[in-house]
C-alpha cells in the first residue's frame, strides 16, 4: 500500500521539481550567477548526483532503499541533461523513468508483501519460482532501467549521454564519463538486487517461506500496465520527444538558446558513443552475476579489502553526518546560546529581573535609614536645616 503511495508521490514531486529546473536556467541572468555559470553548476551537480547515488545504491541492503538511490541517480542524469540544454532529452527520460521506476517500486512492494513485510535483501532469495510474475516484472523494470536495447531506458538514457557528449564542453565531457560510469553501476546494482531477492538459497525463515505467495490481482494488474510502459514508452516516445517531431511536440514550451547545440548534435555522435553505454550495462550485469551467483564470496571480501571505501559508500558519502555538523548542530547550539545568554542573562538579567532586584536592594537600603532612634532623625533634620539656610544665603544673600 505504501509502495503505491510512495511511487505516486515520488513521480509527482520529481516532475514538479524538474519542471522548475528545466524552465529556470534559460532565463537566469542575475549578477550573482550568470546563465552560463548556472547551467555549468547544474551539469556538475547532476553528474555528481548520478555517480554518487549509484555508488550508494550498490551497497545498500534495504530493497526499497536501493531503488530509491537508483531514482536519485537517474535524476542526476536528467539534471545534467538540463545543464547541457538538452531539455527535451531530460523530459523524455523523466517520462520513461516514471514507468520503469514505478514498476520497480511496486514490484519491490510485491516482494516485500510475499515475504511477510521483509525489506532486507540479506533475508530474501530463492523465491523466483514461487512468485514468477513479480520476478518477470522486476526483470522488465531492471532491463528498462539499465538501458538495454529496445526497452524504455535505452532510448532516453542514451539520448542524455549523447547530448552530454555532443555539448563539447568540459563539463559536458565530465557528465558524459560520470554518466557512463553510473550506467555501469546501474546495471550492477539492478542485477545484484534481482539475484539477492530471487535467486540462491532461501535466507528467510521456514515460517516466512511457507507463506510466500504471488500477490493478488489488485497488485499484479498495475504491475502489468506499468511493464507495458517500461517496454514501449521509449520506442513510442522517441520521435515525439527528441526525434523528428520534436519541434512540433514542444512548440513554445521549451526555449533552447541558439548557441546551445547539444540537442541538435546529439543525433550525430560517433558510433562508439552510442555503443559504450550498452557495453557498460552488459558488463555491469555480468559482474553482478559473477559476484552474487557464481563466486558468492567476492562481495564480502571486496568490502573487507576496501573497507574505507565501502564504509564511505554504505554511509551515503557521510552526507547526513556532514549536514548534521554544518547545519543541525550549529543551529541548535546558536539557539541554545541565544536563549541562555541572550534571553535569560541579558534581556531578563538587565530587564525585569535586574530591575526588580534593584528595587529590592534600594528599598532595603532605604529601610535601613529608618533606624527608630530619635537622635538619628533629629541629626538628619539639623543637617537639612543647615543645608537649606546655607543655600538661602548663597542664593539670595546679595539682595
Amino acid at each position, binding site marked *: 500500500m505504501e509502495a503505491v503511495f510512495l511511487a505516486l508521490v515520488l513521480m509527482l514531486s520529481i516532475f514538479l521539481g524538474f519542471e522548475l529546473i528545466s524552465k529556470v536556467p534559460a532565463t537566469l541572468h542575475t549578477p550573482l550567477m550568470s546563465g552560463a555559470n548556472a547551467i555549468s553548476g547544474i551539469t556538475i551537480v547532476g553528474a555528481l548526483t548520478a555517480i554518487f547515488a549509484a555508488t550508494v545504491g550498490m551497497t545498500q541492503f534495504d530493497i526499497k532503499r536501493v531503488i530509491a538511490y537508483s531514482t536519485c541517480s537517474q535524476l542526476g542524469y536528467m539534471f545534467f541533461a538540463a545543464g547541457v540544454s538538452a531539455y527535451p532529452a531530460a523530459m523524455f527520460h523523466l517520462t520513461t523513468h516514471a514507468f520503469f521506476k514505478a514498476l520497480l517500486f511496486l514490484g519491490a512492494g510485491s516482494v516485500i508483501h510475499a515475504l511477510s513485510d521483509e525489506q532486507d535483501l540479506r533475508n530474501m532469495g530463492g523465491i523466483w519460482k514461487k512468485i514468477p510474475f513479480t520476478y518477470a516484472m522486476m526483470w522488465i523494470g531492471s532491463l528498462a532501467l539499465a538501458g538495454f536495447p529496445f526497452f524504455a531506458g535505452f532510448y532516453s538514457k542514451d539520448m542524455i549521454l549523447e547530448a552530454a557528449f555532443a555539448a563539447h564542453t568540459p563539463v559536458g565531457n565530465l557528465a558524459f564519463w560520470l554518466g557512463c560510469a553510473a550506467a555501469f553501476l546501474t546495471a550492477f546494482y539492478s542485477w545484484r538486487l534481482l539475484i539477492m531477492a530471487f535467486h540462491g538459497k532461501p535466507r528467510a525463515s521456514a515460517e516466512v517461506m511457507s507463506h510466500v505467495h504471488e500477490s493478488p490481482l489488485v497488485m499484479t494488474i498495475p504491475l502489468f500496465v506499468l511493464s507495458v510502459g517500461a517496454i514501449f514508452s521509449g520506442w513510442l516516445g522517441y520521435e515525439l520527444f527528441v526525434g523528428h517531431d520534436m519541434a512540433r511536440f514542444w512548440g513554445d514550451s521549451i526555449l533552447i538558446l541558439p548557441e546551445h547545440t547539444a540537442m541538435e548534435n546529439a543525433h550525430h555522435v560517433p558510433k562508439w558513443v552510442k555503443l559504450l553505454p550498452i557495453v557498460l550495462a552488459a558488463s555491469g550485469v555480468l559482474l553482478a552475476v559473477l559476484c552474487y551467483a557464481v563466486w558468492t564470496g567476492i562481495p564480502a571480501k571486496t568490502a573487507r579489502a576496501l573497507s574505507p571505501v565501502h564504509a564511505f559508500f554504505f554511509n551515503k558519502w557521510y552526507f547526513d553526518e556532514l549536514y548534521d555538523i554544518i547545519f543541525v548542530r550549529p*543551529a*541548535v*547550539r546558536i539557539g541554545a546560546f*541565544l536563549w541562555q545568554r541572550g534571553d535569560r542573562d541579558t534581556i531578563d538579567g538587565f*530587564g*525585569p529581573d535586574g530591575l526588580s532586584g534593584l528595587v529590592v536592594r534600594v528599598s532595603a537600603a532605604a529601610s535601613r535609614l529608618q533606624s527608630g532612634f530619635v537622635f538619628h532623625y533629629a541629626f538628619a533634620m539639623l543637617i537639612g536645616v543647615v543645608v537649606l539656610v546655607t543655600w538661602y544665603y548663597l542664593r539670595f544673600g546679595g539682595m
Partner: protein
Amino acid sequence: MISNWPILTIITFLPMIGVAFLLMIRGDEEVVARNARNVALWVSGFTFVISLALVLNFDSQAIGYQFEERAEWLPGSGISYHLGVDGISMPFILLSTFLSPLAILASWKAITHRVREYMIAFLVLETMMVGMFASLDMLMFYLFFEGVLIPMFIIIGVWGGKRRVYAAFKFFLYTLLGSVLMLVCMLAMYIDAGTTDIPMLTAHGFAATMQTWLFLGFLASFAVKVPMWPVHTWLPDAHVEAPTAGSMILAGVLLKMGGYGFIRFSLPMFPLASEFFAPLIFALSIVAVIYTSLVALAQSDMKKLIAYSSVAHMGFVTIGIFTLTEQGVAGAMFQMISHGLVSAALFFCVGVVYDRLHTREISAYGGVAAVMPRYAVFFMFMMLASVGLPGTSGFVGEMLVLVGAWKASSWVALFTATGLVLGATYMLWLYRRVMFGKIVSAEVEAMEPIGRREVMIFVPLTVLVLWFGVYPASLLDVMAGSIQVVLDSVAAGGAFVIAGR
C-alpha cells in the same frame, strides 16, 4: 429587527451576566464546580452565536464603522461611550467569542479547584477582549486594554504551574510598563485634540514632532503585547506557567492586541512617524523571526517551543503591518487571525498530552502517534498550518506578508523568508520527536486516545483553518475596504502634515 439592537454592547457585556449567575450559585463544591462549568460554557457559547449576527449583517462594501453606538459618558469632555466595528476589528471580535467557549471546554477536566472563580475570570476576560476591539473611544480602549491584564494575571497566578507567581508578575510588570507610557501619550493626544474619539483623532492630524513621541509611546505598549524582540521574554514564561486554556486565549487573542493597536492607532494617527520608524520595526521583527526561531529549535519544553514560535510568527505580523502596503497589512491581519486559531490549537495539543502524562518535556514522549492516532492527525494538521503549508490559513498570511515585504525591500523579504525554513525545522522536529519513533515508556503506552470533548475542540479549529486556507477571500473581502481606508489615511496624513509645514 436585529440591526436596531445595541448588538456590540450585548456581545461585550453578556459574559458579565454569566458572571452574575456564577456569583449566585450555592451548594457544595462539587455542585458549584459542575454548574460553573456549564454556565460559563453556555454563556460564552451564546455570546458566540450572537456575535455571528455581526458577520451576517456586516456590509463589507461600506466605508467607515458599522453597528455604531454612542452615549454620553462624561458630558462636555469629549469622552463618550462609543462602540463600533469595521473590517479590521470585526474578525478579532469573532475570534475572541469563538475561542472563549473552546477555552472553557478545554479546561473542563484540567481545572479542579476554585472552578467558579476560574470561570468568572474567563468570562471577565471575554468582556474585556471584546470591549477592547469594539471600542471607538480611546479612553474606553485603554480601560479594556488594561482590564485584560487583570483576569489573565489571576489565571496564570492562581491556576498556573510551579513558577506561576514569577511568570504572572513578569507578565504584569512588562505590560504595565509599556501601558503607562501609552497612557501619557493618550493624555497628550487628548489635550492636543480635545477629544478621545478614535475617528476624530484619526482625522486630527498631529504635528510631525509630536507624532514621533506619540509613536514611541504607543510602540512601548504594543511592542510588549505583540511581543516584539527584545521585550518578548514574558511570553515563554507566561505560556509555560499558564493553564492550557489560558495559553490558548493568551496566544489566540491577547497577542493580537498589539497588532490591532498598530493598525488602529499608529498607522492612521501617526503616519509620518510610522513611515520613519518602519526600518526600526523591520529590524526588530527580522531579529525576532530568526532569533526566536533558533531559540525555539533549542527548547526541550514543548510549550516553550510553541511560545517562541508565536514570537516568530508575530514578527511576520509586524513586518507586514509596517510595509504599509495593501498586501502586507492584509497579510498581517490574516496571519493574526490564522495564528489565533493555529496557536490556540497547538497549545491545546500540548495540553492534551500534558493532562495525561503531566510533563511537557519533549524527551518524555515518543511514539505517541501509535497510541493516539486521531490526536496525531489533528496535531499534524495544526503543525503544518503553523509551518504555512498551502491549503491552510497559515500559508495565506505568510505569503501575503512576503509579497508586501518584497515591495518594501527585497532584503526584508529575504530575511523574513528564512523564518519559514526555520519554522518548518523546529515544528517538524518537534512532531517527529513527540509523535513518531518507538513508544518510549509504559506511561506513554497507557495514554488514552482523545475523547469526544477534545474532538469537539479540535474540529471547529481545524475546519476554520482549512476554510481560510482554501477560501481566503471570505476573510480578505471583509478586511479589504477597512485596510484601504487605513492606508489612504497614511498617505493622506503624510501629505497633509507635509503641506502644513
